[in-house]
């Protein structure tokens, strides 16, 4: 828009959300409450995973019900590399493990991209319910593989004994680790913002709104969607690597279909396709989990009710309520 105001309402809310997420752990650190730092780190990582999914789901309209596969693969990349580094046993063919986060992240991202391509290529031949179920089925395939493959803990999962290293930062310190995750989240949001506004983003959003139109101008929707699916998987995989390091543990539960459902829930709670939707959603989700979890063991029962209410009655999510309908220049 040519005459748009300098700061839209949504930009203001986004800025406030970003500052709030930063303020919680800083405040908690000042008051000596490390628990809240971990909570904020969890929010940042879940938000990052959902930012990834938001590329496919929000921009491309691809309801992937299998993104836990990439979240878990990222986690296992961190866990496996760290284990080999810790034991001093080479991975294979003499390649050593590593405890360096940047290398682990790179591996997680590349692995997720490479696995997302064939999964996407098969799944994207279908649409609608088929796509939902097939992405779910592929994620289950990887889940069952992780459960039954004994080399890396199988069902019991894999512990990371010492949190992996980042050059110049003491990652064992909760606040430092939060800041790493926060910076990565902000970078991913920047990427999402750029993508959305780019030529690729235009084609991707057009594929969601009207795939026939996109084909009629000569852009094959399949190619656009496949690239988006892979990029989306890579971001979610990066989040998985961070999550494994946060918990110092990775298990098949990161790959479970419940996780895939949670990632979709985060996006819908926050506002689908919105830049900060995943952040708002992750904050709300962790808040519900923490607040309800403090009151009742059965918090998921009430989460279900809240979610049902949002789907049936508040379709724009939190950002839809706060910032109004989404706009496309």
């Amino acid at each position, binding site marked *: 828009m040519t005459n748009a105001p300098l700061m839209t309402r949504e930009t203001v809310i986004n800025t406030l959300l970003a500052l709030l997420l930063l303020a919680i752990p800083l405040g908690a650190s000042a008051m000596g409450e490390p628990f809240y730092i971990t909570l904020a780190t969890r929010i940042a990582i879940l938000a990052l995973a959902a930012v990834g999914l938001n590329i496919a*789901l929000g921009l491309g309209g691809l*309801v992937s*019900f299998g993104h836990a596969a990439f979240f878990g693969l990222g986690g296992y990349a961190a866990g496996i590399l760290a284990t080999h580094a810790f034991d001093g046993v080479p991975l294979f063919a003499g390649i050593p493990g590593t405890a360096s986060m940047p290398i682990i992240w790179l591996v997680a991202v590349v692995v997720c991209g490479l696995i997302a391509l064939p999964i996407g290529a*098969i799944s994207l*031949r*279908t649409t*609608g*319910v*088929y796509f*939902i*179920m*097939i992405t*779910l*089925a*592929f994620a*289950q*395939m990887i889940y*069952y*593989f992780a*459960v*039954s*493959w*004994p*080399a890396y803990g199988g069902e019991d999962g894999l512990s990371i004994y010492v949190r992996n290293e980042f050059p110049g930062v003491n990652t064992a310190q909760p606040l430092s680790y939060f800041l790493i995750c926060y910076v990565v989240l902000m970078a991913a949001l920047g990427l999402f913002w750029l993508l959305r506004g780019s030529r690729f983003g235009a084609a991707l959003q057009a594929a969601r709104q009207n795939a026939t139109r996109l084909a009629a101008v000569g852009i094959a929707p399949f190619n656009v969607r496949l690239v988006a699916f892979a990029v989306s998987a890579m971001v979610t995989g990066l989040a998985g690597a961070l999550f494994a390091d946060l918990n110092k543990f990775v298990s098949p539960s990161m790959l479970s*279909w419940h996780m895939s*459902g949670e990632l*979709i*829930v985060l996006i*819908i709670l926050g506002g*689908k396709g919105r830049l900060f939707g995943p952040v708002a959603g992750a904050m709300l989700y962790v808040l519900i989990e923490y607040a309800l979890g403090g009151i009742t063991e*059965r918090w*998921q*029962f009430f*989460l*279900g*009710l809240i*979610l*049902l209410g949002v*789907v*049936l009655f508040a*379709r724009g999510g939190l950002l839809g309520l706060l910032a109004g309908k989404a706009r496309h220049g």
Partner: protein
Amino acid sequence: MSIALLLEQLLNGLQLGVMLFLMAAGLTLIFGVMGLINLAHGSLYMVGAFACAAVAAATGSFWIGLAASLVAAAAAGAIIEVTVIRRLYDRDHLDQVLATFALILIFSEGTRWMFGSFPLYLDIPPLLQGAVPLPGGGQYQLYRLAIIGVGVVVALGLYVLISRTRLGMRIRAGESDREMIAALGVDIRTLYTVVFALGAALAGLAGALVGALQSVQVGMGEPALILAFVVIVIGGIGSIKGALFGAVLVGVVDTMGRFLLPKVLALMIPAAQAGPIGAALASMLIYIVMALILAFRPSGLFATQS
């Protein structure tokens, strides 16, 4: 490896297939008629299992429990159809996924609330205890054979229901043209509730039958649900025939894969490795089959919709 063992595994695969068919038939019917993807179908399976186990424990009769499972699952289905599902028919699939995901959370925690976190156990009824001899010298559990029999009866019953009865005619009309059926003066809301409750009852029946083979616990419906998804994706969403074919295929491939793959691998690599690798591969097998089928037939083998 004896013929009897192979036959036993084949029958196990068939029994798993029948159980999946009971799940998948309801799912595919609900999708075909109402265009709804229902994740909470696994919860209805769980409801059936819990109802059967609880009532059987209270009355001492498996058969009363079985009847209770049908009633409880159908009632639960009808209740969620009227309160929640009905609002989702004209929504997109994403909303349907989320709302029914929310229902899973509610059902699972609700069941834990009522029955606690410990699994319930359900005994095989005395009438069906024991085994029958197999050709080749083996024995096979009578109860599992009975499950296969139930599957055959249900498949025939559904065929008759859909092709021969008034309700079936309305279901078929609802699949092809919703406006038309409304114009015919059929009360579409009631039809939808009935179809949903029917699908729920089949899921409940599956849950109750399987409950006697494994423990009855929260979360038991989810693996069954996901396998049922694989079944209807392979068979073609909306097709009962596809559900039957897909269910038997998935049941047999999964069971035989777990049985045979480690043995086949052991011929090529050391047995110590063949076991775990074979097991890992076997657990992925049905998904690989699904991927292969979809690579050639993106809308399944018996797709009814283009």
